[in-house]
């Protein structure tokens, strides 16, 4: 979806200012559609064997891109993860490794 369509979903096909809402209000979930994970240069890889499901990475991820699922451990949402490495830094058992994104694309 193009940036423009994303902004104006609340009004379909605006022609000029007369069609616009009073300010930039968009239909949600605009940001779920605009996937921003492509900015990433490093990719967090979770070692399921090591993960103790403590939830610390979930708490610290600034982009709400980790979920901790029972039996599965920490699961990263690569559509949005920016590869900042905070989860890897905070994990108390070093279950997360940051690897080169280039190796995965």
């Amino acid at each position: 979806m193009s940036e423009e369509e994303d902004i104006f979903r609340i009004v379909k096909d605006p022609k000029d200012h007369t069609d616009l809402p009073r300010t930039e209000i968009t239909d949600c979930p605009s940001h779920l559609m605009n996937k921003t994970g492509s900015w990433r240069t490093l990719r967090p890889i979770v070692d399921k064997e090591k993960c103790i499901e403590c939830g610390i990475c979930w708490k610290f991820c600034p982009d709400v891109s980790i979920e901790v699922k029972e039996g599965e451990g920490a699961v990263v949402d690569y559509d949005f993860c920016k590869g900042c490495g905070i989860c890897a830094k905070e994990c108390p058992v070093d279950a997360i490794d940051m690897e080169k994104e280039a190796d995965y694309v």
Partner: protein
Amino acid sequence: MSETRIVSGNFAAAYGAKLSRVEVVAAYPITPQTEVVEKIAELVADGEMDAEYIKVESEHSAMAACIAASNTGARAYTASSAHGLALMHEMLMWAAGARLPVVMTNINRAMGPPWSVWADHHDTLAQKGTGQMQFFCENNQEVLDSVIMAFKICEDEEIMLPAMVVEDAFILSHTKEPVEIYDQELVDDFLPPYDPDYKIDVDQPLGFGSLGMPDWYMDFRYKKAQAFEKTPEKIQEVNKEFKEVFGRDPGGLIEEYKTDGVDVLIVTMGSISSTSKDVIDELRDEGHNVGLARLRTFRPFPVEQFREITKGVNVVGVLDRNYTFGHGGDAAREIKDALYGHRDLILKDYIVGLGGRDLTPKILKKVMLDAISLQDKGLDKEIEWVDLRADRKKWRG
């Protein structure tokens, strides 16, 4: 029942917020504003006011919290002064751009250095480009009235913009006057609950504050500019309604005091206006054909009104309690702007009372007599600083 109490300008602001049934107050204390938010904290703690009171770590955060609250459909209020207001600058722009009707009180105080806590309009006027409406109050009753009115104007669906109700440090903020505190029901009838069409709602998610690409940014800004252009009319409309309901006229955009057919027009803002009106009376008794215009809204600037009241006027003397480096007094500049191509007259800018320097009737009379004298001698200088220590004889002698 309405009741009259003897309260400071700061308490008048707090009672204005209470009567407006504000739902979220986020503030950081700064002299001389502290009492406003202290009083509100007390009213909330005592259960007299049903609001969320959020203590924040800075004025920037205070306005950010008000913006978020307003986005959820809550009526939000804050107060600040001088350096606190300056720190809020970015968020003042955001509130306006996001079309959120947050109302705040600013206590006009000089910017440092030199460090000062006294009256000066520079802090407020430095925010004139942020998209906030600005109401300059003359007395404590007007502070209370203006807070209530501001919410009504701001929340109008055609407007949806923020406003600042401003009062002079100490002269109003800490001076007690009789103020009528209206009956809550009367205010409730005048000011219905805030209920915007778009708001943050988990059941109906929307995104706020998206990116505007160059293709669309200007069109959005134009749309916002159009809303701001409607504010003069809306203010006058609400002013009229306020007068009908509460029996009091806060002054609309500009208050005219004995301006009919005058040769010399004096322009003031804020608390010096009442002293100046006395001086005008004295000068008129002495045979001078002089009147006063009190500039109540600096934003929107009453351009049309200035063109109207300067018909037939020879001299306009503007008393600016502010000074911008490389620019001069703000009110004089804006009046010149408004009159360009419309009026051929003498306009002199008097820089007065900076950092709380006292403006006695005697000094004000000298200023007005100077303006009157320009009719014969012509303009001597465009800007004159009044009552500098170097020429006290001229103004106090």
